[in-house]
């Protein structure tokens, strides 16, 4: 290459001042978002479903903790709910559970066949239910009422009918 001259300037990235301002603002904005997410996840204790256990979908209804699904009381006000999603027939087993207000419930959900979803109305309990995996999240229920959880992943033609109910009693 030859030396640059005014007629033959050196190539360089030319950035307009406004554009530079925009770029800085864009980066700052994205950094702020990332920090906000980090704070929310670590200080507010927001959790995502994470590796819990592997199971064999072919045997879960006959052996292991999902053979007798349902609610278990660990201590006063602390529960575990074992739930199995069935695509053959499109239902959750159990379809209904009931806990007193102020309880903390840990959901353990898995599938006996295809993929399903589990979203509990009005809460951040939102999980994919994948055969071979156990999805788990914990949540406290203070307000009495009826909450539906719906299957939000396509699991066959009866998918729209697939839901369950959590009753929080006063």
């Amino acid at each position, binding site marked *: 290459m030859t030396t640059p001259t005014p007629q033959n300037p050196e*190539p360089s990235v030319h*950035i307009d001042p406004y554009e530079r301002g925009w770029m800085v603002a864009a980066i700052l904005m*994205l950094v702020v*978002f990332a920090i906000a997410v980090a704070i929310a996840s670590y200080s507010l204790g927001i959790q*995502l479903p994470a590796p819990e256990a592997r199971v064999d979908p072919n045997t879960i209804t006959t052996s292991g903790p999902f053979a007798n699904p349902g609610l278990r009381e660990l201590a006063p006000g602390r529960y575990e709910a074992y739930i199995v999603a069935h695509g053959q027939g499109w239902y959750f087993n159990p379809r209904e559970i009931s806990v007193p207000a102020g309880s903390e419930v840990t959901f353990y959900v898995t599938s006996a066949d*295809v993929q399903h979803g589990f979203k509990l109305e009005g809460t951040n309990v939102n999980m994919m239910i994948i055969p071979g995996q156990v999805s788990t999240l914990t949540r406290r229920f203070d307000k009495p009422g009826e909450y539906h959880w719906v299957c939000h992943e396509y699991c066959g033609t009866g998918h729209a009918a697939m839901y369950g109910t959590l009753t929080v009693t006063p």
Partner: protein
Amino acid sequence: MTAISTTTPVVEVTPAARPATYVLSKGEKRFIGLQLLVAVAALSIGSLFGPLQALEFSGLTIGGRDIYALFQPLLASYYQGLTLHGVLNALIWTTFFITGFFNLTVTYGLRRPLAMPKLNWLGFIVMTVGLLTAAVPILLNEASVLYTFYPPLQASWAFYVGLVFVVVGSWIQGYGFYITYYRWRKDNPDVRTPLMAFGSLITMVMWQISTLGIAVEILTQLLPWSLNLLPGVDPQLDRTYFWFTGHPLVYFWLLPAYVSWYAMLPKQAGGKLFSDSLARFSFWMFLVLSTPLGFHHQFTDPGVPTIWKTIHAVLTYAVAFPSLLTAFTVVASLEYAGRQRGGKGLLGWIPKLPWRDVSVTPQILAGVLFIFGGIGGITNASYNINLVVHNTSWVPGHFHLTVASATTLSFMGIAYWLVPHLTHRTLWAPKLALAQAWIWFIGMVIFSNGMHTLGLLGAPRRTPLGIAPYVPANWEPRLLQTAIGGSILFLGAYLFITILVVTVLRKPAPAAAVPEIPEAQSIQDPQLTPQWLDRWAPWLTIAILLIILVYGPNLLYQITNMQNTSPGFRLW
């Protein structure tokens, strides 16, 4: 045809002999036109189901029967329709349009014919054979697995084979582009790659890297399993493979629109490209960042550790940066155009833009809708907020702003000059075409607002909500809103198709009346863009290293712990 005689060793500020234009041959035009034909045919069938889905939401019944009952036995279920809608619109309309469009951007950009046109033909034929192969089981209701085909719902093997062919065919077309580029580069060692070809090539390379995910998923799991050679699959692993491809897929849809926004739209609007260097930088960032962030689709998956989800969330913010850069450059280019046309004051350039141009207006409206699509995308990526919206109807609300607007509406705008150009016709009813763009825009605002709101209220996606037993009263007005918006969109889709069909059937027009290929000039000479922004090796290396770094460990973990315990199910 050698474009430039490279005799002078100095850095040419303006490459001396880039031909001013390149006239596509009859055969080239026919080839591109054929790909667009398949694309539009796919859209015309895929779009039939959109309004049906939206109307189903409103709980519409006819004679006391669910609307889908009327279509039996032609259409077995909501889900056969939704599979057709997703596959034909999101996978076929886009891919065929993109490969066709790239044939134009590569040849016209480089001012030379394809090096091996037969190779591109082969690619197109493989794609088409794949489409037909996949279409058979879908139409027979043997592949109602939706366009994400999550196992262990099991489609007929022909569905998986067809998809592989479509992807491999698109790779072959990509090879045709690379060879053409390689020859051009040999003839023009110091010239900056013309932007429209540059963006197209990067998009194609990104696509080839990222589609390795579904290629491996289908070839090592789904296909042998559907042929009974493998007793079971590991659905969690398959989701990871799928989303390795699934996220970059959205950039495969988006970047061709960016090619038009950067390299064509400024010219159409009467201006110039604001920054050549930053345009190139954005494309490289997409190559580097599009793939290693697929776990943001798996935040709620049980089998992926939180740390990887976090890393992918952060990288997702990073990939928002080149889109924000694009927003600046495109708006600045439009502002420059508006000012060239006499616009004064802070916003006075906006009304001066050529709003009567049938190609400009759809692309601007696509960009406007994409602002909201982008905001929604950042929202989805914020993984704590993702818990609120994941798999709710917020998500289809979001991607109808992206793939069905930023992409589709831009492609409509492109088609309004491209189809006349290819067929030597003038566009039929340009005023109607202009109205069509606004109809799509308005329909989309209504539809996607309804879908987003329903999602926030908790409505699941992929669900015929009209027959769901748990729908509370406060969803009803939004379900109706969605039905209205969806019907307007349908009108928009069919107006588009009608305009194109009538255009093609018209008598040939005199050459002067037929639109030319718009190619925007840059305000700064592209030769002043530094060479490192026009070299593949560094960027490709970073891209591959980053993928290995942020996908490698967990992918390896999932593969080594693979449990192929899921047999296939057909629950439709």
